[in-house]
C-alpha cells in the first residue's frame, strides 16, 4: 500500500462549479485504493515507507466501510503485516523499520479486521502474549502515560493506541487502567478539551484519543460533555468542514477527530451533518477516486480513509457503520470485543 499522494485532485472535474447533488464515487475510491501498491516507480512511494503499515490500515478500513471488504487480498495483507513484526512483539512501519506503538496498534486493528488475530500465535515472529506485553511495557508506572517506543516520547495518542489494541486482544489486565485514566484527567483543559500532555492546548486529534480511551474503559462520566461539545461544535466552519483548533483551516481528517468525539459524547447533532457531507464530497476526485484534505488539493489514502469514516459516522447512505471509538467497522469491533478471552 502506497502513501503516495495524487494522482487525482479533490474536486478535479468540478471546474469551480460544484453541483448541489454530489455523489460518493464508491467504485472510483475502491479502484484508487487498489492501485496504491502499484506505484513503486514513484519516489514518493519510497519516501513514505515509514507509514506503510498505517497505509494498509487506512486503505483496508476505507474499503470495508465502502462495502468492499475483499478488494485487497486477505492473505497478502496478513503476510505483509507479519513481515513487519519484531521478536519483541512490536511492529514497525515496514520490514526493517523499528517497532513502535503506532504500527503495533495498526497491526492489531488490521489483523482483527480480516479476522486473523490467531495468525500471531500461528506464524508471527512473536505470539499474542508478547504483542500485549510489548504494548503494556511502554506504560510509565508512575504517571500512567504511555511512550511510543523505547526512546520515550510520550503522547496521549500512544495511551489511546495501547488501550485500543489491548482491549481488542482482551489484555487490558496487563496495564494500570486507573493510572491511565488519571493521566487523561491531567490533560484536561477548562474548555472541556484535552491536550497531548498535561498543560498542552486542546486539539481535536488529542480530544479524540482521550475521549476514546475513556470510552474503552467505561469512564465517559469524567468528560465535561456540554463544555467539550460546545468547543467541538465550534470547529465547524461556514463551508461545512471542520478544523482542529480555533482559528485554523478546515481539513477532511477533522471530520473524523471532531465527529467521532461528538458521537462518543452523544452530541454529533451539534454540528450540521449535511453540510459536512457536502464538504467531504467536494474533496473527492470524481474521476480517479480518492479524497483530499480540501477541495483542489491532491488526494491521498489518509484523507480518503478519514473522509469515508466521517461520512459513515454521520450515517451517509450506502456505507457500513463505523465504530467511533475504534475507527473500524462496527461489525468487526462487535465480533472482536465479544470473543471470549481464552
Amino acid at each position, binding site marked *: 500500500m502506497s502513501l503516495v499522494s495524487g494522482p487525482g485532485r479533490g474536486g478535479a472535474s468540478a471546474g469551480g462549479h460544484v453541483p448541489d447533488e454530489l455523489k460518493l464515487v464508491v467504485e472510483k475510491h475502491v479502484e484508487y485504493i487498489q492501485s496504491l501498491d502499484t506505484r513503486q516507480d514513484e519516489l514518493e512511494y519510497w519516501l513514505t515507507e*515509514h507509514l506503510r503499515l498505517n497505509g494498509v490500515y487506512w486503505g483496508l478500513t476505507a474499503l470495508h466501510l465502502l462495502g468492499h471488504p475483499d478488494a485487497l487480498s486477505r492473505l497478502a495483507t496478513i503476510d505483509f503485516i507479519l513481515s513487519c513484526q519484531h521478536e519483541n512483539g512490536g511492529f514497525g512501519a515496514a520490514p526493517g523499520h523499528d517497532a513502535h506503538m503506532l504500527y503495533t496498534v495498526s497491526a492489531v486493528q488490521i489483523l482483527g479486521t480480516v479476522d486473523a488475530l490467531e495468525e500471531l500465535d500461528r506464524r508471527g515472529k512473536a505470539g499474542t502474549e508478547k504483542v500485549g506485553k510489548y504494548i503494556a511495557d511502554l506504560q510509565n508506572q508512575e504517571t500512567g502515560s504511555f511512550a511510543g517506543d523505547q526512546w520515550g516520547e510520550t503522547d496521549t495518542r500512544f495511551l489511546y493506541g495501547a488501550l485500543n489494541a489491548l482491549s481488542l486482544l482482551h489484555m487490558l489486565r496487563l496495564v494500570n487502567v486507573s493510572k491511565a485514566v488519571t493521566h487523561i484527567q491531567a490533560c484536561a483543559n477548562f474548555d472541556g478539551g484535552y491536550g497531548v500532555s498535561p498543560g498542552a492546548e486542546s486539539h481535536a486529534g488529542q480530544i479524540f484519543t482521550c475521549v476514546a480511551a475513556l470510552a474503552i474503559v467505561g469512564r465517559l462520566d469524567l468528560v465535561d460533555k456540554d463544555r467539550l461539545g460546545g468547543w467541538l461544535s465550534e470547529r*465547524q466552519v461556514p463551508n461545512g468542514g471542520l478544523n482542529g483548533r480555533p482559528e485554523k483551516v478546515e481539513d477532511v481528517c477533522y471530520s473524523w477527530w471532531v465527529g467521532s468525539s461528538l458521537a462518543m459524547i452523544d452530541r454529533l447533532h451539534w454540528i450540521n451533518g449535511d453540510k459536512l457531507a457536502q464538504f467531504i464530497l467536494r474533496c473527492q476526485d470524481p474521476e480517479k477516486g480518492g479524497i483530499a484534505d480540501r477541495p483542489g488539493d491532491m488526494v491521498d489514502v489518509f484523507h480518503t480513509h478519514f473522509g469515508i469514516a466521517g461520512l459513515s459516522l454521520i450515517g451517509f447512505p450506502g456505507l457500513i457503520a463505523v465504530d467511533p471509538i475504534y475507527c473500524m467497522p462496527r461489525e468487526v469491533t462487535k465480533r472482536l470485543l465479544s470473543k471470549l478471552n481464552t
Partner: protein
Amino acid sequence: MASHGVPRVQPATDRDQKKEQQKIKDYKGLVDSVNDGIRGYQCTTKTLELTSKLLKWNPEYYTIWNHRRLILKHQFEHPDPQVTNAVAGPDHETVMNTISDELAFLIPLLRKFPKCYWIWNYRLWLLKDSTRLLSVLEARKFWQQELALVGKMLSLDSRNFHGWGYRRTVVSALESIALQAEGSATSMTEIEFEYTTRMINLNLSNFSAWHNRSKLIPILLDERGADHLARRNFLDEELELIERALWAGSEDQSLWFYHQYLMCTFDRKYAAESMAPDLTTTERSTYVREQILKVRDMLDGAEDCKWIYQSLISLSILYRDLGNESIEKEVAIEDYIAELIKLDPLRAGRWNDLKSQTT
C-alpha cells in the same frame, strides 16, 4: 503525514520519468548503506554522516533517527581511549561538542519541516542526554539556548502546536532540580506569564497564548502567595484585558473562550480550580451581573454577533444558579436562543437542546 495542502502537480514527462527512476535508485542505495552500517554495528562517523544525508532527504524516516541515537550512545559509552580516561567515561568536551553539532544539524531541518514530530523528539533526547552526562552549568547552557530558539520559532508561527509544547517542556526542564546549581528549583512562571502577554498584544487571536495563560495564572498566584484581595485585583485586571479585547474583536472565538475561562471563577462547578476560589456568593453575583450588563452593551452595533448571545445565555443561567432573579424581565433566555438559531444554523442542534433544557 499525507499530503496536507499540497496543490496538484503537472504530469511527468519521459525525461522527468528517467530522473525520477535515478532518484529512486540513489535513495534506495543510501537507505541500504545506512542499514548495512547499523546491522554491521559500525557506529562510526561515516555511518553517522550517511544518516545525516538520508535524514536531510527524508526526516520522517523515524528508524534512522533511532540509528543515530544508537551511534551517539555508542560513542558516549565507548569513547576513544586515546583522548579519554576510560574509567571516567567520555570527557565533557567531546559530549558538549557532539551535542552542539547535533543541535546545529537540526536547525535547517526544523525550519524546513517544522511539523515533523521525529525531529523534535530527537532534539529533546539530545537535550536530556546533556542533562544526564554534563555538569549543571554545561547542560543549562544548552537548555537556555532552546528557550531562545523556540521563541524565534513562535515569532514566525505563533500558533505552532509543537512550538508551544516544546516551550513548556524546555521551561519545565529549566525549572527542574536537575538543572539548578544551588540544588533548589527556580520558577519561571512570572517570565512565561509575561511572554503570553507579549504574544497576545501582538495578536489577540492567539488561542495558544490565551490557553497557556489560563494554565499559568493559578500557579503564579500560588507562588506569589496571593491573598483574597490580591486575587480579586488580579481577576479585575484579567477582566479588563479581555473586555478591551472583545470590544476590538467580538467575532474572535479565542477571546470568548478566554472569557468563558474567567467566568469559571463565578461558577460553583469550576470555582475551586480558578484564580479566586474563595469569592462569596454575593461577590460572584455582583461580578456576573456586571458582566451581563457589559456584554449586553456590546450588542449595540453588533446585533448579528452570535458569540454575544451565547455569552449572555450562559451568564444569565449562571446568575440564576447563584440564586438571583433574572436581571432583565423583558428579554428572556429563550429570546437569545431564538436569535442564535437564526444566526448560527450550523449548530442548530445544540441550540435546540439548550432550548428544551431551559424551558
